[in-house]
C-alpha cells in the first residue's frame, strides 16, 4: 500500500513537472546563430580569423542593443573542414535555442551536403563568397545565398584584370594561363568559366590539380617551369596557398604574374614568406585588409576593450577577419530585413530570415552606418538573384601588407548569367526540382 501511494505520488509529480516545463520555458527574445568553424586541422590558420571576425561582429551587434532589441545567442561546433562532421554539427545545432536562423558552413564540401538538407529543414544557407556558383540562381536554389560573389565572378574578374594589364582583352589571344587548383569541388569551381573565356578570348588554359591538402606541389611547379605560362591562377585553401607561393619562389616564377582567388589571398598565406611573396596578387571580394575602417574601430572599442574579444587584437582588420565580419553582417541584416516585414523586435524563424535575405537592400548609406564605408558596395538581392552584387577588386602583397592595386571590377554578367542558368537547370533536372514560379517569389 505504501509503495503504491509512493509510486502514485511520483507519477503525479512527474506529470506536473512535464506540464510545468513548457510554461516555465518562456520565449526569451533571442535569435540563435550557429557557427560551424574549423579551428583545428589543416585549414585552421585560415578558419580561425574568419570565425573570430564572425563572432566579434555578433558580439558587436549585441553591444549595440541587438537586432532591434533582439539579443543574438551563438554556439560554435567544430567541423575540422570535414563534411561528415559538418553534417553532424548541422543536425546537432539546427533545433537548439528555438531553431537556427541560418547556417554559414565556410566549406564548399559541407555546403554541397547541406544544400540537400536545408530546404527540408527550412533554414537558409548563406555562403558569402563560396559554395556552388550556380546557387546564385534563386529560381532553383531557394535556400542558398552566395551573397557578394561566387567563384565564376572571381575568375572573370581575374581575367579582366589580366586583360587590363595586357592592354585589352584581345591581347590575351595566344597567351598561356595555368590554373593551380585544390583537387576538390572548391578548386574545380572556376574551371567552367575559365574554359568559356578561353573559347571566347583564345588563350590556352592549363589545368594543374593539386591533391588535398596541397603540401606536395613540387611536380606541379616543375610542370609550370617547363611550360612557362604567362599567368598562374591559384585556387587553393589553407596550407596549399603558402606552399604554392614558396614553390613559385623556388622555381623562380614571378609572383607578379600570379593571381589568387579570394580564398588564396589573405595574411596566413603570405605572412611567413614576407618579401618572398611580394608582388603576389589576389582577388578581394569587395573588402581587403581594412585596419582603418570604422568597423574595426567599433569592434576594438565596444568588444575588445571590454575584454570580450574572441581572438588576438592584431587580427582585427585582417582579410579573413573582415570576411567573417562581413558574413555575420549579411546574416544580421537579413534578419533585420525580415523583421521589417514580420514584426520589428520579434525573433525571426528560418523561413522569415530567408525572405529577408532574398530582399536585402543594403545601400551605401546603410553600409556606411554599419561601419563598412569604403569597404563594401551596395548589395541588393532578389528572387532570381541571390548574389546581390558582383563587384570585385584586386589587391597585391607588398611584402608586409595587402594594398589595393586595381579599380573596382565588375564580372561580365553577359557570360555568367547564361552559364548560371544552364548549370542551375541541370541541377534541377538531377534533383527533380522545379523552378520557382513568379507567385512563389512574392511570398
Amino acid at each position: 500500500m505504501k509503495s503504491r501511494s509512493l509510486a502514485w505520488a511520483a507519477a503525479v509529480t512527474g506529470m506536473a513537472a512535464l506540464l510545468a516545463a513548457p510554461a516555465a520555458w518562456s520565449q526569451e527574445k533571442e535569435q540563435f546563430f550557429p557557427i560551424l568553424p574549423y579551428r583545428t586541422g589543416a585549414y585552421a590558420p585560415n578558419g580561425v580569423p574568419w570565425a573570430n571576425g564572425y563572432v566579434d561582429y555578433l558580439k558587436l551587434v549585441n553591444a549595440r542593443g541587438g537586432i532591434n532589441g533582439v539579443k543574438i545567442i551563438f554556439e560554435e561546433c567544430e567541423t575540422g573542414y570535414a563534411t561528415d562532421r559538418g553534417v553532424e554539427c548541422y543536425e546537432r545545432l539546427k533545433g537548439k535555442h528555438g531553431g537556427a536562423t541560418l547556417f554559414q558552413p565556410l566549406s564548399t564540401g559541407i555546403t554541397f551536403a547541406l544544400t540537400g538538407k536545408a530546404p527540408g529543414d527550412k533554414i537558409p544557407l548563406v555562403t558569402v563568397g563560396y559554395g556552388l556558383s550556380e546557387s546564385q540562381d534563386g529560381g532553383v536554389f531557394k535556400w542558398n545565398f552566395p551573397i557578394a560573389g561566387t567563384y565564376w565572378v572571381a575568375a572573370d574578374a581575374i581575367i579582366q584584370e589580366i586583360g587590363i594589364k595586357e592592354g585589352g582583352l584581345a591581347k590575351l589571344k595566344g597567351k598561356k594561363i595555368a590554373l593551380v587548383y585544390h583537387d576538390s569541388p572548391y578548386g574545380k569551381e572556376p574551371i567552367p568559366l575559365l574554359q568559356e573565356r578561353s573559347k571566347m578570348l583564345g588563350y590556352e588554359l592549363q589545368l594543374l590539380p593539386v591533391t588535398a591538402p596541397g603540401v606536395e606541389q613540387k611536380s606541379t611547379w616543375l610542370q609550370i617551369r617547363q611550360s612557362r605560362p604567362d599567368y598562374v591562377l591559384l585556387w587553393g585553401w589553407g596550407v596549399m596557398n603558402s606552399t604554392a607561393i614558396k614553390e613559385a619562389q623556388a622555381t623562380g616564377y614571378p609572383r607578379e604574374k600570379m593571381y589568387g582567388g579570394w580564398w588564396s589571398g589573405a595574411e596566413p598565406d603570405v605572412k611567413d614568406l614576407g618579401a618572398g611573396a611580394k608582388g603576389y596578387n589576389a582577388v578581394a571580394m569587395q573588402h581587403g585588409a581594412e585596419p582603418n575602417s570604422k568597423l574595426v574601430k567599433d569592434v576594438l572599442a565596444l568588444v575588445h576593450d571590454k575584454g570580450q574579444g574572441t581572438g588576438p587584437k592584431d587580427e582585427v582588420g585582417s582579410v579573413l577577419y573582415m570576411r567573417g565580419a562581413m558574413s555575420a553582417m549579411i546574416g544580421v541584416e537579413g534578419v533585420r530585413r525580415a523583421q521589417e516585414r514580420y514584426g520589428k523586435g520579434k525573433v525571426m524563424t528560418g523561413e522569415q530570415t530567408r525572405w529577408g535575405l532574398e530582399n536585402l537592400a543594403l545601400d551605401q548609406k546603410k553600409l556606411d552606418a554599419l561601419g563598412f564605408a569604403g569597404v563594401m558596395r551596395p548589395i541588393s538581392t532578389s528572387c532570381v538573384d541571390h548574389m546581390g552584387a558582383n563587384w570585385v577588386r584586386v589587391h597585391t602583397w607588398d611584402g608586409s601588407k595587402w594594398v589595393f592595386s586595381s579599380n573596382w571590377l565588375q564580372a561580365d554578367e553577359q557570360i555568367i548569367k547564361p552559364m548560371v542558368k544552364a548549370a542551375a537547370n541541370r541541377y534541377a533536372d538531377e534533383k527533380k526540382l522545379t523552378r520557382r514560379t513568379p507567385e512563389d517569389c512574392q511570398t
Partner: protein
Amino acid sequence: MFYRENGQFKVSYRSDQQVFPILQDRIAIALLLVIAFVVVPLGASEYLFRAILIPFLILALAALGLNILVGYCGQISLGTGAFMAVGAYAAYNFQVRIDGMPLILSLLLGGLCATAVGVLFGIPSLRIKGLYLAVATLAAQFFVDWAFLRIKWFTNDSPSGSVSVAGLQVFGHAIESPVQKYLFCLAFLVVFAVLAKNLVRGAIGREWMAIRDMDVAAAVIGIRPVYAKLTAFAVSSFIVGVAGGLWAFVFLGSWEPAAFSIDRSFQLLFMIIIGGLGSIMGSFFGAAFIVVLPIVLDNLPQWFDLPIDVAMASHLTFMIFGSLIVFFLIVEPHGLARLWSTAKEKLRLWPFPH
C-alpha cells in the same frame, strides 16, 4: 542465475548447431531486434538518427565486410575506403544512367562492381602476405581516389566532381525521413549479418580461418589458397561496396571522393581491431566505439555546462579517444568482443565461480 540452462537439451543436430543455442540468448536477440525495429523508431530524436544511428549502422556493415577479410581470412587490407567508393559510384552510375532502376538493385550491383575490383586487387595476396599486402591494398586506395577524381565518366561529367542522388524510394515507399533511412539501413545490416554469420560457420569460413592460422598447413590438407583468399576478398568487397553505396546514398546524399579517403580505411581497420578480429559481434562493438564515442565526447562539455573553447574540446576528444584505444588494447588485445565473451562465460555460471 540469468543463464539457467538446465532443461535445455538438444534432440537434433539442427538444434544443436543453431547460432544461438541457449534459450536466454535467443530471447535477448529477439528483444534486441524488437528494440531496434520498433522501440527506437518510435522514441529516438531526429538528431540521434541522423548523426549517430544511421552512420553506426552503415559503418557496422562495412566493418562486418572488412572483418571477414582481415579477421577471418587474415589478409590485411588498407583499401576499404576504395571499395566503398567503388560501390558508391557504381551504384550512382546504375541509378542515374538507367531510368527506373530499383534502388536495392543498384546498391547490389554496386556491390558486385566492388567485388570485381576487390578480387582484382586481391590477386597480389596470392604471393604476398602481411604488411606487404597492406601496402598493395593501399595502392588500391590511392588508385581509386585518383580514378574518381580524374575520370569524368564516373561522376556523370559533373563539373564540380561532386555527385548527388535524390528521391530514393523502394517499392513506392520513399526513403526520405530519418526513420525510413534508419529502417532501410537496419534491414540491410540484419540480412548481411545473418548471411555473414552463416558463411563463417560453414565450410568456406573454416577455409578462411585455416588460411589465417597457418596457410601452409591449410594448403597441405587440401584447401586451395587461391580459392579461399579470392573468395574472402570477393565477399568482403561485396559487403563493403554495399555499405559504401548506403553511406553515399542514404547518409551523405551528396559526396565527393574525399568521403572515401584513406582516413575512412583506417577508421574501419581500427573498428575491427578494437571491436575484435574474427568476430561478427566485434564489428558492431567496434563500430559503436568509433562512431558514437567521439560524438559523445564532443557533446560532454555542453551536457555538463563546461565552458570549454571549441578547438580545445576537439583536441581533448582526440586525446581521450586515443588513450581509450590504448587502454582497451592493453586490457584486452583481442578486442571488445572478447571482453563480452568472457563476461558472458562468467554470466553463464554466475553466481557460482566455477
